[in-house]
């Protein structure tokens, strides 16, 4: 009974994390697509991404929206959480790079997220990475518990 309650509780946490990520990715993705021209221009200013600015400007929001859809699909939820973690890690690396070399360039993060400073953005991303990790651990635990029960 207690175990069942625990599983349900963990399931709700995973659902909440996926829903939060969906809101974040749909918001960030659509904001970037709405201001695609600016997004491209900002990417073109960053030395390292400048040669690929054209396709990165399309690729990033589309991946965000695809991940948001996958996060809502039970069958792909774990894979999507891994994807979200990897994407957040890439964003964090980009922010660390910008902090080191081009701090004056405004963040091309989409919507109100752009108004955050680079440093607060780093903390913001770290929190989201922790959330994705919690979701992954809970889902992996659930998977291994299910396997043990079947065996």
């Amino acid at each position, binding site marked *: 009974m207690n175990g069942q309650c625990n599983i349900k509780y963990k399931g709700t946490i995973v659902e909440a994390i996926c829903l939060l990520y969906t809101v974040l990715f749909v918001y960030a993705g659509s904001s970037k697509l709405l201001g695609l021209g600016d997004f491209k221009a900002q990417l073109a200013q960053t030395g390292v991404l400048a040669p690929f600015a054209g396709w990165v400007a399309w690729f990033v929001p589309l991946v965000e929206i695809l991940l948001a859809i996958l996060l809502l699909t039970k069958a792909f939820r774990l894979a999507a959480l891994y994807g979200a973690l990897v994407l957040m890690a890439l964003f964090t690396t980009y922010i660390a790079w910008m902090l080191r070399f081009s701090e004056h*360039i405004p963040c091309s993060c989409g919507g109100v997220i752009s108004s955050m400073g680079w440093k607060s953005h780093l903390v913001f991303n770290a929190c989201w990475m922790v959330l994705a990790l919690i979701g992954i651990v809970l889902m992996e635990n659930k998977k291994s518990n299910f396997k043990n029960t079947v065996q």
Partner: protein
Amino acid sequence: MKTGFVKLALPAIAILLAVGLAFATEEEPMLQVAHYYHPIEGWQTTMVDENCINGNQIPCTQDGYQLYEEPSFSSRELRKD
């Protein structure tokens, strides 16, 4: 039945909320063209945000080079607070 509705309605509300917010918070960024002198490539152009337009304490730089309002050393050095 009720759980099924919630499971369908919650993601739909989340997506609608996110798209609505994206439209609601869409704004024109205050960007300005800035210039810096590269010892090999000469004067280069870049973009800066409004902090570098209005500030006056910390120098705004690109790859370590001071940014200027115009492609000339006599123009205003861009700084932020």
